[in-house]
């Protein structure tokens, strides 16, 4: 047998032995007993008496205990045995101090778990929202126009960009469209996207089955083809494997299905979002598609060639667009390409937010660590004598340190295991809280890298602080330690503990202040008057039956009039209006015009822009916008009467400063028709509650639906957005509207119910996320700080038992003892609040950009959180204080 094999065999034998210690020990005992017995017997046969025979046998054997020890050493793996012994001992110690152990473990578990949960979500939503290969190469494309830095790309321009750029490996565009799907059960509206052929290859997304579009399918006159979502495939085709090549009827036309897009595809940018159907953009019947100056809400994406920077791409596209502007000055003068990294486009500029969050994460982790450190320190004081005794009894210092290390690690590891619960639960909870309007990665799960990191940090802390006191006690003179042991904390330890509590309070205060500021910002934001009353307003899309597709303008107008009447007479509906143009905070629409008093500008470029609300007579009643002067649109403003418009304050002020706008006339760029302004209304916040004031395009123009030119009217044959004001319950009204719709036509579909309240709350979704996250951190910090104060105070009280006993023996009342402890806690809380406030004043500046109409040093918030923190601190001290007050004098004195 080779030496190596022998060694493996020995090692294996020893490992096996570890597992059967009890049995082997029993065997050894029996074997040795047999030996002694046999020796005794032989001695007796030689004539010794019983006693003498046994003594001689034992002497010849040598020390039984030593032999056993040597045997055991030979048998097992000594270091494993020692470690297991350490673990057993540590576990016993931890179990014997359930208070300390549970608090320490709870703190660590909450710290690790909470941080991991929150950070996992942040990572999924903000840091890594694009689940595509090399997502850093992806950019969003827009056509920049004088009024729109991120405007719509016209299709002819897109084709030229695609051909002439040198920076992108591929580029694509998309544009939403609501198709009516018929022929498969009830008619329904399916949200779709018109896309260029390369759209999915830009993203690097492959269909679940089939293929994406070929360039030929993007040509005009190509056979209609469609991609459908996995969801639609399962819902309408029962997930049939032979779906490829089957027809799907959209707006009464058959499209051959060429592929299925997987359900995990998730992308939102500009107006794009993942939909049920994708169709080549050339299938769009819009006559303006090929017009170079048309703004059809088309936005693009592109993939940078490897190695090409954003700057190079911008320079390249500048040249491309310059050439195009020179070639088509009418349409393209003043336009360029805007290239934004897709991630930034989706989540906006998140840097300040991330900074704040990282700070918050760090702070919470700091609190958790400080908590455990202070607990370990407090306890080490109590154990000073234990170490001293052990060292005096001959334990080596390394052995004591090893034992403590094991204890800390055991604590940390248990906490890490338990932290999985808050981590998993917290991630799920946070995802539920997450505003739906925010982008997010496909599947946000627990991030194990974050978990590993937070675990490592806390393990390190618990180990370090578990060890530091051990190093100190093991150096101390055992005799001295035994003499003074248990007689309270030494001065430096007291100070260290107090410092820890103060730090915790201060950090918690900073986090609470951050959360408080966010809450105040949101309250401020909610109190901003949007210019209309969003409560009890419902918006939805109403598709028209495909049959009116080729109807005359008169027929379309008649259909909409009838629709208006039917909806208005629906139970619960108090007012109704179609919305063909913009809708505040939901969608914008613009129109070019010039003032009738001025000559027609040479090109579109020199025209004026206004947001246009193309509505019915009841629009003001629906939105509860007051009329300032003149009149609003009426039923009499129809195709036969003179053209009229109503403008808002901003429009009046911008184009007719110091004059009465009523009676003034403007001309629309598309028709050239003159329109008379007949009324004035206050400004409505179109863009958002917080950013509307800073937008350049704010002038608002209200036009009657019934006076729209033919081309726009024919575009409405597919359906229209509606708003209604309702009373009673939302569900009842939705049901009533649905049944009204069915009564009108079975092919008519209502979709996309949304209350204006939720539209507004979506518009401040990212601020809400900031508030929720900071709030979660702050609550976590508060809980941890509370646990920390409680733990330290409880420790202090138990160590001052004797002192308190003496005080009481000398005549102190229970009330005095209670106050003594509370005063101690209050002093720490006060110091914490002072330092915390000072830090908060400095640190909250960093989050100024997240705030709205609230100063980073808002006194109300600072005062509020200080009060909360003081109350929590006093509450945390209450229980230890009561325990101190209930100390039995005699017992306290006798216990030492």
């Amino acid at each position, binding site marked *: 047998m080779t030496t190596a094999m022998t060694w493996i065999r*020995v090692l294996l*034998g*020893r490992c096996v032995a570890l597992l059967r210690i009890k049995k082997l020990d029993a065997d050894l005992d029996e*074997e040795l007993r047999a030996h002694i017995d*046999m020796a005794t017997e032989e001695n007796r046969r030689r004539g010794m008496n019983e006693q003498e025979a046994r003594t001689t046998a034992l002497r010849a*054997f040598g020390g039984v205990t030593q*032999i056993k020890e*040597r045997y055991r050493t*030979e048998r097992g793996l000594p270091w494993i045995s020692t470690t297991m012994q350490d673990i057993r001992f540590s576990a016993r110690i931890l179990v014997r101090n359930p208070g300390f152990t549970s608090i320490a473990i709870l703190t660590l578990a909450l710290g690790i778990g909470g941080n991991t949960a929150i950070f996992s979500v942040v990572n999924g939503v903000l840091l890594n929202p694009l689940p595509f290969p090399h997502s850093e190469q992806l950019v969003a494309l827009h056509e920049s126009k004088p009024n729109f830095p991120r405007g719509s790309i016209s299709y002819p321009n897109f084709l030229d960009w695609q051909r002439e750029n040198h920076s992108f490996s591929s580029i694509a565009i998309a544009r939403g469209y609501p198709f009516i799907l018929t022929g498969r059960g009830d008619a329904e509206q399916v949200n779709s996207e018109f896309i260029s052929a390369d759209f999915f290859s830009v993203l690097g997304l492959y269909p679940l089955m089939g293929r994406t579009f070929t360039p030929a399918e993007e040509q005009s006159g190509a056979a209609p083809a469609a991609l459908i979502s996995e969801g639609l495939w399962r819902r309408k085709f029962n997930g049939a494997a032979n779906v490829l090549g089957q027809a799907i009827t959209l707006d009464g036309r058959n499209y051959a299905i060429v592929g299925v897009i997987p359900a995990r595809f998730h992308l939102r940018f500009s107006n794009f979002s993942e939909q049920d159907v994708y169709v080549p953009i050339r299938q769009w019947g819009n006559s303006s598609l090929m017009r170079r100056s048309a703004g059809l809400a088309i936005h693009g994406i592109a993939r940078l060639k490897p190695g090409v920077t954003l700057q190079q791409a911008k320079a390249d596209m500048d040249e491309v667009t310059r050439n195009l502007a020179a070639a088509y000055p009418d349409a393209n003068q003043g336009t360029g390409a805007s290239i934004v990294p897709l991630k930034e486009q989706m989540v906006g500029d998140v840097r300040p937010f991330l900074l704040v969050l990282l700070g918050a994460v760090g702070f919470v982790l700091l609190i958790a660590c400080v908590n455990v450190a202070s607990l370990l320190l407090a306890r080490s004081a109590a154990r000073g004598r234990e170490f001293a005794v052990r060292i005096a009894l001959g334990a080596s210092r390394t052995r004591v340190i090893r034992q403590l290390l094991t204890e800390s690690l055991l604590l940390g590891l248990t906490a890490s295991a338990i932290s999985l619960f808050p981590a998993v639960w917290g991630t799920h909870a946070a995802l539920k809280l997450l505003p739906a309007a925010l982008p997010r990665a496909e599947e946000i799960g627990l991030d194990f890298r974050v978990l590993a990191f937070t675990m490592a940090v806390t393990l390190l802390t618990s180990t370090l602080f578990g060890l530091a006191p051990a190093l100190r006690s093991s150096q101390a003179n055992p005799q001295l330690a035994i003499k003074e042991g248990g007689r309270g904390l030494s001065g430096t330890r007291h100070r260290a503990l107090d410092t820890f509590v103060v730090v915790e309070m201060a950090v918690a205060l900073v986090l609470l202040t951050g959360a408080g500021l966010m809450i105040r910002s949101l309250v401020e934001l909610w109190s901003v008057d949007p210019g209309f009353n969003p409560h009890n307003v419902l918006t939805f899309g109403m598709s028209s039956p495909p049959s009116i597709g080729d109807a005359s303008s008169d027929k379309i107008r008649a259909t909409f009039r009838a629709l208006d009447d039917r909806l208005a007479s629906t139970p619960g509906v108090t007012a109704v209006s179609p919305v063909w143009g913009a809708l505040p905070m939901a969608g914008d629409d613009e129109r070019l015009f010039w003032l009738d008093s001025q000559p027609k500008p040479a090109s579109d470029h020199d025209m004026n822009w206004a947001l246009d609300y193309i509505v019915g007579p009841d629009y003001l009643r629906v939105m509860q916008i007051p009329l300032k002067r003149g009149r609003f649109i009426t039923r009499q403003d129809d195709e036969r009467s003179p053209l009229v418009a109503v403008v808002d304050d901003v429009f009046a002020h911008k184009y007719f400063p110091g004059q009465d706008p009523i009676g003034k006339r403007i001309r629309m760029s598309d028709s050239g028709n003159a329109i008379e302004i007949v009324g004035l209304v206050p400004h409505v916040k179109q863009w958002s509650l917080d950013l509307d004031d800073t937008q350049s395009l704010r002038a608002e123009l209200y036009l009657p639906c019934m006076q729209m030119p033919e081309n726009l009217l024919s575009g409405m044959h597919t359906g229209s957005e509606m708003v209604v004001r309702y009373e009673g319950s939302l569900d009842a009204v939705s049901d009533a509207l649905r049944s009204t719709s069915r009564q009108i036509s079975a092919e008519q579909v209502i979709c996309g119910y949304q209350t204006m309240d939720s539209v507004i709350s979506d518009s401040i979704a990212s601020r809400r996320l900031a508030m929720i996250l900071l709030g979660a951190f702050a609550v976590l910090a508060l809980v941890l700080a509370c646990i920390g104060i409680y733990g330290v105070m409880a420790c202090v009280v138990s160590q001052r038992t004797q002192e308190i006993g003496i005080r009481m023996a000398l005549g102190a009342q229970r009330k005095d003892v209670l106050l003594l402890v509370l005063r101690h806690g209050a002093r720490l809380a006060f110091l914490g609040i002072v330092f915390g406030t000072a830090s908060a004043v400095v640190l909250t500046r960093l989050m100024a950009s997240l705030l709205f109409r609230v100063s980073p040093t808002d006194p109300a918030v600072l005062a509020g959180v200080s009060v909360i923190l003081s109350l929590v601190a006093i509450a945390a001290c209450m229980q230890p204080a009561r325990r101190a007050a209930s100390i039995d004098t005699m017992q306290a004195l006798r216990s030492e």
Partner: protein
Amino acid sequence: MPENKSDVLQGTLDLMVLKTLESMGAMHGYGIARRIEQVSANGLSLNQGTIYPALLRLEQRGWVKAEWGISETGRRAKFYSLTRSGRKQIAQETENWERTAATMARFLAPSN
């Protein structure tokens, strides 16, 4: 303890045990210890107990095997016997020992 007893050299105990088992067959620990004492004519300062760690060592290396049996006095005892590789090992160990002994003898031989 008599002055003229010599300590057991490191490693020699293993060979003594192996050799004992070779000549006597399966034996319990007490028997092996007694046999070693007899063969060395009580010239060794040996605690009988020390053969147990030695037996364990040999067992771990696979040179001896142990099983419970009944002693000549009718007592339950653990009996040790040589394995096949143990037998081979004796030859090797013997050779090692003889080499060492010869070397020592050369050092101790009167110089001429």
